[in-house]
């Protein structure tokens, strides 16, 4: 049996500097990478698609990716598709904010408490999609830290 590379999911945040939702994408993706699914995910740098990052393009061509966008312009999803391959899943923060009745979330530079909570919600959504793509059974443990009932 050959030693195949472990299958991971690539996370691509738009990071949009003009909107607080762009900051939410960064915080949510980092939360998943650092805490919730560190063994199952990597981050891909969106601008590297344009700047000639062959590693980024190749990864997105052969591994599943999740695009996490701040707004409905969906820069991360569309740029990934343009330069590499269609993302396996696409998450838009403004849609999740609308569903959850989230109001103002601070600024692109500094999210307020509501923005931080929205980032947690988006991180949970990323985890759901990651587990789905890796065909893992839902895990209660490892979901957003501190939010589980005893």
């Amino acid at each position, binding site marked *: 049996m050959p030693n195949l590379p472990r299958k991971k999911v690539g996370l691509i*945040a*738009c*990071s949009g500097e*003009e909107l607080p939702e762009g900051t939410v994408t960064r915080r949510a993706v*980092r939360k998943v990478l650092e805490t919730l699914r560190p063994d199952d995910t990597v981050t891909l*740098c969106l601008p590297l698609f*344009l*700047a000639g990052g062959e590693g980024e393009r190749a990864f997105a061509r052969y591994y599943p990716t999740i695009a996490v966008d701040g707004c409905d312009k969906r*820069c991360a999803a569309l740029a990934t598709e343009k330069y590499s391959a269609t993302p396996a899943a696409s998450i838009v923060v403004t849609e999740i904010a609308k569903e959850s009745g989230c109001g103002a979330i601070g600024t692109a530079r500094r999210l307020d408490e509501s923005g931080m909570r929205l980032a947690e919600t988006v991180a949970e959504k990323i985890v759901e999609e990651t587990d789905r793509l890796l065909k893992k059974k839902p895990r209660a443990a490892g979901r957003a830290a501190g939010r589980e009932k005893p």
Partner: protein
Amino acid sequence: MNGTRCKIPVVPCSGIGKSLGAAAREAAFVLAEDLRPDKTKIVALSLLVLGDDEARREVAGGEAVAIDGCKLECAAKGLACSGASSVHKVAVFDVVRRHRGLKPEGVCDLNEDGLRLARATADEAAKIVDEIDAEGGHA
């Protein structure tokens, strides 16, 4: 800068994997919100990567400032590909060499040294903005 001229576009790298990228992003906010709010405007790099028409119009044909975290210089390349007439580069990886005591850490939440590095980077970018402004270089 007179009232009719556009603000100078500032594009930071989106660096999500390294502290220096996060410092680049923070430096852009320091520049555009604290140091030179009347002269500069942040343009999202993701929009330029996608080729968004409105974002390209903001940068096409004029001078712009790129703030990059690493040597791959994504922001500078993004601006060049989007038609900026002249891209002024500010490199956090060079700034940190001039401030050897700083040990930036963190991405979403930069530590104190990371914030100091961002401020030092923004100060260098502000000088460039003032030079562009003095020369009337941004159409």
